[in-house]
């Protein structure tokens, strides 16, 4: 492993493994939190998927570093003209970790399990497929097996991102044998078809998975074991990486990026950005009900300087509500420049030439899209002061923060979003449509035009047309300026120099089957 | 002398012994158990007895600092046990106390001036100027000077502190002063100063004293009458001359003989009684002294002797002088021989 491992001096096996370098087949992956469950369909939280992505497989996969749809457990798939019928050709000879066969029947049983659930058991199924079996908005008409290895899914109405949804980690296929024993039991004893098998879970400490010898893809995985270790504190995690106790660490502070780059024993990984960090302006609150004021805010904030200082340059300046990697991104939108004079002018237009006082809500916790909320808030505060806006920084404990913000209690709040499936809908509609007021549309922004565009795009099967719709919407959003989009950050990971084959995925769940130590 | 200033009758003070979950009372410490005596105006009643026999409790119960379990404390014709809290506070201007430990009884954070002024404030004694004048006056009376008023208790010697304690007791012109071992913390040479002062003040202010002590010499010196206590009871009470010349109770006799006399030539017969005083929580049956008494009779273990006048003005509680005890005449004779 990286660094010279000081512990377990008495342990000969491990010493040998360490010295041999290439013989080390155990990866210790340090991360910020523990998983809440190992049944991906039941949770919404990313730490779980980091593990389950390696235990389970989905019918379709994302691309190695993007969110294009690729074959997965389904080696081929076919969409009907009207976008209502999907046919999947499954891989054959695949077995679950418990030895049962993976086949069309198993897929059907998985879908039935989800469709029969409720919103709190399978929250993602609910939000991605519009509800459950008897719900009106439920998109899926039926899931049927056609022989051993063909599955046909029929929809009630076209859903543009349907295939992308299927590639999401939460719709991984589990062994029906295993989950039929009960949902709660299954959470701690996951059985999938993935390259690794579950071994042990020490809560808040480690989750250990080991090589699935029977894995259907030849030669994979390359590692024998992966241990996910929870180290909540970013600095502590970095320390553990530096001392070689862990081989791979995510959530590296931008500030520490250079240090890892300079370290001969380590290498730095950049995760492709699929997020947005923004300053939301609650449009129902004075004076942010005035477009001029919102635009003025956009002019007043020096995004580049913030990115240079607190993202250490490892982010892209945001001008839209979604990152450029997502199809539908409108690059023609002209970003608001950093122009305090212009901001002042706009304020004057709005009748606020003397500026005003406001609360600026700062995130209390680091998130991939916003490594240090309070510091960015401080920088913004200083920017705003330059144009005469007196911002008082306010912070709440995270859950309270979300709760209060979602109730529209904040003047301006910092927040962000990491995409689930790399679809524009998953950004624009979720975050800025009136349907999501009270939930993820914290700004209470409401616009008939965009609403219409979003709904249309949801069912539009023609990719080019969809892109056009989203581009239009982005123009409007830019003009209306419910947000000050700040940055699309590039989350950093650090790893041992010897590590190869590790490709960070934009969704945050990394498949480790190709990883090995040189 | 005419009407007694203070009459105590059948006074009892039991302290409950609590135990268990809810503090159930499982027994009593009979600190004082049915005592009766009186104090005449202008006299000094000495109370002697060994540690823990109930002397202080007696003093405090009379003052109503402790609520008596039973009995009557009649002061100037008023039964103090029946008064309300406010009434008692006003009675306290007439009954004052001097404490054993002069240091502990003075608030270390108050100046002497403040300490002496306090009783006047409490009992509404005139303007601030008058009060200060009176404080100075009394400081001089007890042999201190005006400038002492600004000082704090720890800056005085033991004897001086006790004078302050006495001055405080005098501030309200009381009639009765209960002095609870006022000199036992003092050295002999200082003790003499304080005793002299107390005697002088008594004459000057027509004070009545209840003087509690365990030193028989001191009690003899200052008292007109003496009560001897043993285990919560008065076992003998009489004029002090009479008591020292002619003690009747075996306990008194033993007590007197135990006091060392500062004269190497004086040879006395020593009656050394064995053992310790029993616990007031669990007093012996019958006469409480029978466990240590050299003249123990059968009757002593069964019947509690009552305090009765044996001679004029000389009461004793002992079966040697009761009808029950008279049976054993020989014993009595033997006793007479030995006295």
């Amino acid at each position, binding site marked *: 492993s990286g660094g010279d491992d000081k512990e377990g001096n008495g342990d000969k096996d491990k010493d040998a493994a360490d010295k041999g370098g290439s013989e080390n087949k155990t990866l210790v992956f340090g991360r910020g939190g523990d998983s809440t469950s190992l049944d991906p369909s039941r949770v919404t939280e990313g730490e779980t998927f980091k593990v389950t992505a390696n235990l389970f497989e989905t019918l379709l996969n994302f691309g190695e570093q993007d969110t294009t749809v690729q074959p997965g457990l389904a080696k081929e798939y076919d969409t009907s003209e009207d976008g209502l019928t999907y046919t999947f050709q499954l891989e054959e000879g695949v077995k679950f970790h418990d030895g049962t066969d993976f086949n069309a029947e198993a897929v059907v049983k998985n879908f039935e399990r989800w469709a029969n659930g409720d919103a709190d058991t399978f929250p993602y199924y609910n939000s991605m497929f519009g509800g459950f079996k008897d719900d009106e908005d439920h998109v899926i008409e039926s899931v049927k097996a056609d022989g051993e290895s063909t599955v046909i899914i029929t929809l009630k109405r076209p859903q543009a991102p349907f295939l992308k949804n299927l590639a999401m980690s939460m719709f991984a296929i589990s062994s029906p044998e295993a989950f039929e024993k009960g949902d709660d039991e299954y959470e701690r004893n996951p059985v999938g078809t993935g390259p690794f098998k579950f071994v042990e879970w020490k809560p808040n400490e480690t989750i250990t998975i080991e090589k699935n010898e029977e894995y259907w893809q030849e030669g994979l995985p390359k590692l024998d074991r992966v241990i996910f270790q929870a180290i909540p504190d*970013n*600095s502590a995690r970095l320390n553990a990486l530096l001392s070689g106790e862990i081989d791979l660490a995510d959530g590296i502070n931008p*500030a*520490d990026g*250079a*240090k890892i780059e300079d370290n001969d024993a380590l290498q730095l990984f950049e995760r492709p950005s699929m997020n947005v960090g923004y300053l939301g302006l609650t449009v129902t609150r004075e004076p942010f009900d005035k477009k001029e004021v919102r635009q003025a805010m956009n002019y007043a904030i020096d995004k580049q*300087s913030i990115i*240079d*200082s*607190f993202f250490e340059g490892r982010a892209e300046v945001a001008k839209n509500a979604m990152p450029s990697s997502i199809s539908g991104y409108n690059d023609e939108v002209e970003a608001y420049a950093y122009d305090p004079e212009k901001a002042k002018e706009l304020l004057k237009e709005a009748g606020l030439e003397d500026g005003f006082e406001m609360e600026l809500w*700062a995130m209390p*916790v680091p998130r991939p899209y916003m490594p240090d909320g*309070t*510091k960015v808030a*401080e*920088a913004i*505060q*200083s920017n705003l002061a330059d144009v005469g806006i007196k911002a008082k*920084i306010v*912070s*709440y*404990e995270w859950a309270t923060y979300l709760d209060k913000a979602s109730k529209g209690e904040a003047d301006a709040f910092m927040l962000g979003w990491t995409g689930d499936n790399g679809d524009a809908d998953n950004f624009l509609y979720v975050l800025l449509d009136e349907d999501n007021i009270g939930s993820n549309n914290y700004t209470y922004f409401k616009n008939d035009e965009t609403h219409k565009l979003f709904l249309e795009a949801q069912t539009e099967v023609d990719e080019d047309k969809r892109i056009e719709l989203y581009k239009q919407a982005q123009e409007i959003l830019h003009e209306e300026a419910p947000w000050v989009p700040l940055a699309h950050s590039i989350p950093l990971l650090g790893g041992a120099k010897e590590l190869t084959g590790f490709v960070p995925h934009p969704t945050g769940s990394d498949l480790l089957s190709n990883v090995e130590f040189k | 002398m005419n009407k007694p200033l203070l009459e105590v009758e059948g006074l009892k003070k039991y302290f409950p012994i609590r135990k268990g979950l809810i503090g159930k009372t499982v027994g009593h410490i009979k600190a004082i158990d049915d005592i009766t005596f009186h104090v005449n105006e202008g006299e000094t009643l000495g109370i002697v007895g060994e540690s823990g026999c109930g002397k202080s409790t007696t003093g*405090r119960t009379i*003052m109503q600092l402790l609520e008596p379990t039973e009995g009557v404390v009649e002061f100037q014709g008023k039964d103090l046990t029946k008064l309300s809290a406010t009434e008692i*506070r006003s*009675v*306290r*201007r007439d009954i*004052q*106390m001097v404490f054993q430990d002069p240091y*502990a*009884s*003075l*608030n*270390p*954070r108050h100046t002497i001036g403040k300490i002496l002024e*306090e*009783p006047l404030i*409490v*009992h509404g004694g005139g303007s601030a100027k008058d009060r200060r004048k009176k404080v100075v006056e009394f400081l*001089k*009376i*007890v*042999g*201190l000077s005006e400038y002492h008023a600004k*000082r704090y208790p*720890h*800056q*005085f*010697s033991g004897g*001086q502190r006790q004078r302050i*304690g006495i001055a*405080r007791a005098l501030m*309200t012109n009381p009639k009765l002063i209960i002095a609870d071992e006022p000199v036992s913390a003092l050295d002999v040479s200082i003790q003499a*100063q304080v005793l*002299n*002062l107390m005697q*002088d*003040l008594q004459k*000057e202010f027509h004070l009545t004293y209840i003087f509690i002590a365990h030193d028989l010499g001191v009690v003899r010196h200052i008292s007109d009458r003496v009560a001897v206590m043993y285990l919560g009871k008065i076992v003998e009470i009489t004029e002090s001359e009479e008591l020292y010349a002619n003690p009747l109770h075996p306990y008194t006799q033993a007590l007197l003989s135990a006091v060392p006399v500062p004269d190497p030539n004086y040879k006395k017969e020593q009656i050394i009684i064995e053992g310790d005083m029993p616990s007031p929580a669990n007093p012996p049956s019958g006469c409480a002294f029978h466990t240590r008494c050299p003249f123990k009779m059968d009757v002593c273990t069964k019947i509690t002797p009552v305090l009765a006048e044996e001679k004029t003005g000389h009461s004793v509680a002992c079966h040697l002088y009761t009808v029950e005890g008279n049976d054993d005449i020989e014993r009595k004779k033997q006793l007479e021989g030995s006295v």
Partner: protein
Amino acid sequence: MSEFTPKVDGVVEAELEKTTGPWREAWVGFRKSKVAVVGAVIVIFFILLALFGPLVTKEGINEQLMTDRLQPPSSEYWFGTDDFGRDIFSRIIHGARISLSVGFFSVVGSIVVGSFLGIIAGYYGRWIDTIISRIFDIMLAFPSILLAIAIVSVLGPSLRNALIAIAIINVPNFGRLIRSKVLSIKEDEYITAAKAIGMKDFRILFSHILPNSMAPVIVQGTLAIATAILEAAALGFLGLGAEAPYPEWGKMLADSKDYLQNAPWTMIFPGLAIMLTVLGFNLMGDGLRDALDPKMKS
């Protein structure tokens, strides 16, 4: 009767000490203890810093100068700069005001509330004592940092709320201290003496019991300021303390945690500032204890 001059046997003036009250005496004792004086000097230094420091430092402690980020200590920036390019030296000086006020006001708050409850419990006893004591028990059994976190979570994180939370968690400590002090003083002879001259309960409470129970409270209070500063720093570290951009020391530590390796000065100086201040109060508290409370003397 003022004529009366007793034959008080020719009093020879004993060597009386100079007119010194117990407080003055304590002060003299305090001055003699080197440790205490060192503590007091540190504390006074920080108090002066808090009062006048901001007048002499660079203006605009919150002014950001991104071009001067994370500068090491130099003649321009004595303690270097932080990640906003702000002068750490000036911020620490301003932070003194925050830390000292949090320490001081939270402790005063707990003393006031704690004394009130403690006196009532100690003096009146019975059921009211039982109730108050049980409440103290409950609060003491509650892990204090968790309690503080919970309170701050309820009120929302801010300096004022951190102060309130710290005050609340310290209430039972003072309450118990006062209660036990009242219980023991209640038995003192001078209280009996006060009762014997016919003094009312209320007056006894305020004129005798309270002043005499103050010494340990002052000692405990000084030490509690030290703890309160640490607690505030801990809350600041958890992001539950002062709001940005206040230069609260604990928050400064938390903010610079990531720079421990590239810019250690950002962590070392606020840490030292906390340690020194707290040390000052602890030293002073120790000295005060020796001076005010001879029984606890070590």
